[in-house]
């Protein structure tokens, strides 16, 4: 199954919703340590809205559906991470506009645009202890794998490994951004909830390809 259709993306968005709902309490808990503990609520609200939109989408344009899902997310979850997820999906969707079939190359361009969107909108840099620190290494791996014409599942397995290592590295970092930055040195050793969200995104795609 090296081509993905709109039905695959509907299913992936549905799985993302399930994953965010399952991890709701965990995200609330880790966000409560240095943040305002709303991350679990905003992520489940955002991905529920995205999944609902996808379910109702009747055309076959994958890019437009993902962009619209992004708009629905930022509407349903007007917090920083909700807006960032919305931006990622809007930008990623734009990169796939008009496509009814997607291969790994296209999927890399989705994640590349997604990542650029996060960096533009969030203004956090790599190394600031944010979602960027797990997602960016994964997107770099996808670029390599796409250049080498890899299969989807092995490519995402490697990307997931990079994201997991990114979470570890982010945990060791001192926060430079958002509310966690006020904790300075004390933020070292504490897991960054945003980096977990980044890992969950890649993990959900990986799990989906595994079962196909």
């Amino acid at each position, binding site marked *: 199954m090296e081509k993905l259709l709109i039905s695959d993306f509907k299913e992936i968005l549905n799985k993302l919703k399930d994953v965010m709902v399952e991890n709701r309490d965990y995200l609330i808990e880790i966000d409560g340590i240095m943040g305002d503990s709303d991350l679990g609520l905003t992520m489940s609200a955002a991905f529920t809205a995205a999944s609902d939109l996808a379910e109702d989408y009747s055309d076959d344009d994958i890019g437009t559906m993902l962009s619209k899902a992004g708009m629905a997310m930022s509407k349903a979850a007007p917090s920083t991470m909700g807006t960032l997820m919305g931006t990622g999906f*809007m930008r990623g969707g734009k990169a796939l506009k008009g496509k009814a079939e997607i291969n790994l190359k296209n999927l890399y361009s989705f994640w590349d645009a997604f990542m650029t969107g996060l960096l533009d909108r969030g203004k956090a840099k790599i190394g600031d202890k944010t979602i960027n620190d797990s997602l960016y290494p994964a997107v770099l791996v996808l670029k390599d794998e796409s250049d080498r014409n890899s299969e989807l599942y092995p490519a995402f397995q490697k990307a997931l490994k990079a994201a997991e290592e990114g979470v570890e590295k982010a945990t060791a970092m001192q926060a430079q951004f958002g509310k966690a930055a006020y904790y300075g040195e004390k933020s070292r050793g504490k897991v960054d909830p945003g980096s977990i969200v980044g890992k969950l995104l890649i993990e959900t795609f990986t799990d989906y390809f595994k079962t196909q």
Partner: protein
Amino acid sequence: MKKFLNKPEQFVDEMLEGIYLAHPDKLKYVNNDLRCLVRADSKKGKVGISTGGGSGHLPLFLGYVGDGMIDGCSVGGVFQSPSADQMFEVTKAIDQGQGVLYIYGNYGGDIMNFDMAAEMADMEDIKVLQVVAGEDVASSPKGEEHKRRGVAGIFFVYKIAGAAADKMLSLEEVKRLADKAAANVRTMGVALSPCIVPEIGKPSFTIEDGQMEIGMGIHGEPGIDKGPLKTADETAQILVDKIVKDLPYEKGDEVAVLVNGLGATPKEELYVLYRKVSEILNKAGISVFHVFVGEIATSMEMAGLSLSLLKLDDELKELLAKPADTPFYKQFQL
């Protein structure tokens, strides 16, 4: 805390309900959301101008929605950014095919959400340009102007942009003039007492009796100096010195002056301060085209004031002089 409230968490929405009831012929809301405020009587075919920001600063921001100024405003909780989606709904409502200009203050949450709203508008083929106003000289040193907070001086940017849009100028031209106003305004403030966010119920910082905070922001951001209360003349001297040196405003320049009360300072005191401002500007050879004195951008019940100067040229002067009529601000031709 002693405030006229029902439930603190209803503060913003009940304020908005009051505003719509008081000005039904001037203001309305869209998308069934009280916080998406637009003009009820928009002039046809012009560039739309939108703003937005946290509540707690009236007449900023929504008070400048009206004839000769701006067309829509998304309203956030007290000192909180409205959402990108609310900004987008306002954008759709005020676009008349000529595009929309966003004018807002330089704060992280507002920037992120207005950027997002602009992207949403782009997906619907609405052309959006943005002007971020930041002119508080105490918030960041010269050379780092892009980091400065936006405070009362944004009033001048609304006024210039609104008059430009009313002349049926293009979106690019309205933005050019708004940018020019933003580049030529400087502000600095002083605070004597803190303010209380209703949902928090107590001040988030203190200024001791007999003390003042020089350079404080309109959400209580720390200033550059804290010290014993100074006289009105000394305060005027500090503010004018810092502002004049910054742009700089020079001998032969013509300016508009804004002496703004932060919420709990009486107009009397603002005029006592202006007396000295006028004397200093006069000595420096800077002439004054017009003086605005009153509450233009407040911080709940904070006691304090800010001083803004706008350097004028012929084109800015012509636009500043045009009449304006909003529920919160009225101006005859100057």
